[in-house]
């Protein structure tokens, strides 16, 4: 997915509805900016191929 494919406003509308999150209209531009920035930063991790045997670092010790 290229950065251009990511519609942060549409994503926000769908995700907020799914989560029962009310976002004031005045806050939406800043939240959209943050979603776009997060997408841009996350891409560095998401684009990096990892072997199947790499487990998540967050672990649980019973």
């Amino acid at each position, binding site marked *: 997915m290229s950065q251009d494919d990511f519609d942060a406003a549409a994503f926000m509308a769908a995700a907020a509805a799914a989560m029962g999150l009310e976002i004031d209209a005045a806050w939406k531009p800043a939240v959209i900016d943050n979603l776009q920035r997060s997408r841009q930063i996350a891409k560095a991790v998401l684009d990096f191929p990892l072997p199947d045997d790499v487990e998540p*670092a967050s672990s649980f010790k019973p």
Partner: protein
Amino acid sequence: MIDFQSKGHEIAAAVRNGKISATEAVRVALARIDAINPQLNAFTAITSDRARARAAAIDQAKDEGKPIGPLAGVPFAVKNLFDIAGLATLAGSKINRDHAPARADAVLVQKLEAAGAILVGALNMGEYAYDFTGENVHYGPSRNPHDPTCMAGGSSGGSGTAVAAGMVPLALGSDTNGSIRVPSSLCGLFGLKPTFGRLSRHGSFPFVADLDHLGPMARSTLDLALSYDAMQGPDANDAWCAQRDVEAVTGKLDAGIDGLRIAVADSYFAEQGDAEAHEAVAAFAKELKTERRVTIPEAGRGRAAAYVITTVEGANLHRERLKTRANDFDPAVRDRFLAGMMLPADWLVQAHRFRRWYQARVAEVFKEVDIILAPATPRVAPKLGQVMMTLNGVEMPVRANLGLFTQPISAIGLPVVAAPYADRKGKLPIGVQIIAAPWKEELALRVARRLEQSGIAASFAV
């Protein structure tokens, strides 16, 4: 006998030797706080009565010949995310004012007081620790004592302000992505972010359970070592606290650096940041007689992984507050949390998987070297209120990017001493990260000690 410039170990020695009383040490600290805190805004609560009572008890114990501890009489203060019995734990927020007062002190406060140190108050911080600036919309900014029109750095901003202004010789902060190391750099202090899991976080308000660290900030390496030793030890009440015995460093601080393999981080850490940041690293490297370079592989992606984990897990912590009291957040914090709350689970899991891969690669680097030097911040303190900054010709937000050199290191929990470059000639301070392999705090502290003794690293109150 003592004044605002006195280091913690100097005060402790004076009390131990009977040259001053603990009561006098507390009086000096409270007088300094009264005189300059109104201008610098480091404290959100001053626990004067408690401190005086504690000091009197120490003086009485000394008179009776009882042991008084290695930090006896040393005033200290803590970022206001540490529990203090009788006070609501604010964590920099307006919302937490409604919380019930803490019933007990945080574990690390208890441990420092058991060693004789005396709590004098709670310190300002960026809201819920999601901050590198030390600014706070509810309580006002922590101001940088070296230039009160500049940021102290965050999120442990009040900790930086209080120690750099000589209100206390020792403060505790927290560091999830750089919140001890950034204010240490901008305020010209020594700061220790121990290995993830080394010090108990029980009784502190969390931010990101997978990344939160607690640690000391001071104006000398010996004060870091003494306080760190007092705070070590396992704690079953913190699920991530390692079940390790105390590995005391104070007695080893002067063991020297012979045989240590020291290198400067290149690539990511050399390609960004102002010249001043790199001059400090070069000066330390020269003093340590190393020209060796080393690459921390994929550090930029390590930072990205920490960013994702922070924004998603931090938002999750506040999910109910974001639904019911969103108006009461600092808008800059709220809008980032709202975005973080909605990011896909897949991104978070991939960030945690990347972190595992990255940890293994960096462990290989530490087979070749013992210490890595890197800038602590990409620049000196920005002006208060400054939103954007230009680094290497690229304009970027201050708030997110002051931690661009600290975030890849805490992402995998490595121990770091932030050490201030001495040769600033009236300019604003800047610091260097001295990074060691997990559980090797001693090595980072020994290197910092050497730099301090040579005079190339130095911290003084202003």
